């Protein structure tokens, strides 16, 4: 006859196991950050940040890759932010829930799930080849903007929805038009939330590799215009590590990558908290 285990004892056992697994998981994640930074931090000097890579990345710093990354972020945001906010305004202020909004939302969600390699493939076939833009910051930025669009639409939508309806009613009662209400009242109030989405997008731009490799190329020179090829930090790290060019420089680049992304995501998190706090008061 099977003995019945006291539920309170089995509860004890399982709870200990759950805590153990959680501790283990969090330990792995922390270990990753610590391992990279211990190896990488000694590499990082002012020189490392401000000199161009030399000898394929064996010597020198990562200045040109930082600049390429920044240019790429600029292009991607210039395209994705207006599109994304416009779409969010339309979805929240100009329509009711209907078949059309359902289709738009579904399309946006699907786009969010498309893997970066497919985006890279498309960017290569469309921007690089069909539009004859070549491997360039412009091709890379445009492909990247496709990747960011869903995030920006979703976060903007959420933050516009969080703006209390009473604010709009006041505007309408004063005879203000819809567009004026949106630009003067709704958007300024929702701004911190929207900025959160944009900041998160910057983080994704910094870490992305597959898209950039296929569309912006991997030239190590400092890009002189948006039509030049450029190598971002993530691609630089990938090439250094995969081809075993220089391990110290690879660790240094990885550390900069991880910390810039963690810092940016932390900013986004802080902004979101502030935004939510504000609306706790509105009720």
């Amino acid at each position, binding site marked *: 006859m099977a003995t019945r285990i006291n539920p309170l004892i089995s509860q004890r056992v399982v*709870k200990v196991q759950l805590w153990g*697994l959680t501790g283990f998981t969090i330990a792995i994640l922390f270990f990753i950050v610590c391992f990279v930074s211990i190896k990488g931090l000694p590499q990082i000097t002012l020189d490392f940040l401000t000199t161009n890579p030399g000898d394929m990345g064996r010597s020198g710093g990562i200045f040109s890759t930082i600049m390429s990354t920044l240019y790429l972020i600029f292009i991607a945001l210039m395209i994705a932010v207006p599109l994304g906010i416009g779409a969010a305004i339309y979805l929240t202020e100009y329509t009711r829930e209907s078949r059309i909004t359902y289709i738009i939302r579904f399309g946006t969600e699907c*786009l969010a*799930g*498309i893997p970066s390699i497919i985006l890279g493939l498309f960017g290569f*076939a469309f921007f690089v080849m069909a539009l004859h833009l070549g491997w360039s910051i412009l091709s890379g930025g445009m492909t990247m903007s496709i990747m960011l669009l869903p995030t920006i639409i979703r976060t903007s939508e959420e933050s516009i929805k969080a703006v209390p309806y009473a604010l709009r009613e006041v505007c309408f009662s004063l005879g203000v038009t819809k*567009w004026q209400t949106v630009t003067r009242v709704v958007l300024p109030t929702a701004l911190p939330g929207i900025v959160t989405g944009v900041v998160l997008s910057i983080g994704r731009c910094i870490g992305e590799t597959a898209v950039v*490799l296929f569309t912006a190329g991997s030239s190590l020179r400092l890009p002189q215009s948006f039509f030049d090829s450029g190598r971002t930090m993530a691609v630089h*790290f990938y090439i250094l590590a995969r081809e075993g060019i220089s391990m110290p420089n690879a660790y240094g680049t990885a550390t900069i990558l991880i910390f810039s992304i963690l810092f940016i995501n932390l900013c986004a998190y802080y902004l979101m908290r502030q935004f939510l706090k504000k609306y706790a008061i509105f009720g």
Partner: protein
Amino acid sequence: MKEKLIEKILMLLAFSAIGVLLLMAIFIFKEGMPIIFKAGINNFLFSTHWAPTKGYFGIFSMIVSSLYVTIGALIIGVPLALACAITLAELAPLRLTVILKPTIELLAGIPSVVYGFLGVVLLVPLIRDYLGGPGLSLLAASMILAIMILPTITSISIDAIQAVPYSYKEGSLALGATHLQTIRMVILKAARSGIITAIILGMGRAIGETMAVIMVAGNALKLPSSPLSPVRPLTSNIALEMGYAAGDHRAALFATGIVLFVFIMVFNVLANIITKRWQQE
């Protein structure tokens, strides 16, 4: 007049995402479909002979590798992620959860190349020394992917568990169930759809991941015979050969992309259906 115009413009912007999605599908299908018909759908999907420069375009071993790697990642990752989610949502004091949940989400931002690199530096030698084989393997890829999808699955599962009405828990506890019984029989059941959505999203991320996998999977063109054999999933195939492919070879890579695209769309539709059911509940 101006208002109407603005509305029209905004509507156009709203369709941008779905427009891009369609454009992308059209472009990839246009580039890839001809070669699938040329090689024959059966040959393309179910042959393991991939020698694109000689006219053999069979991607069966890559499809199998992709599925194995993804399933492996889920087998390792899901129990860990669920344990984290249950602990943080139910067992841990609120103050700890408030700190740890954002921390886990922050770690989702670490770039995939970094995970792949750590896989090569730390995990691959361990597997080679203690389990045998070349180290670069199905197992290594699955483990790295498991760590990568952990934050996503954990964070969405925590939301799903916390969304379960408190009265369910009170009812169960009042009937004399222990906390663990309540979690297992009431809370996890009620949060089921949300957790499944989280797992499907993780699955989509795992099957689509490229840079980490390319570094640790070994990229051999064979049907994997054990978890220790090196494999080449669909994504790696595209990324590895895109640099120098031309003509039919490049078309075949786009065709590989089509297969991947179809997988992802199926996952998305599944996740969408389940999320909808979740919201109805």
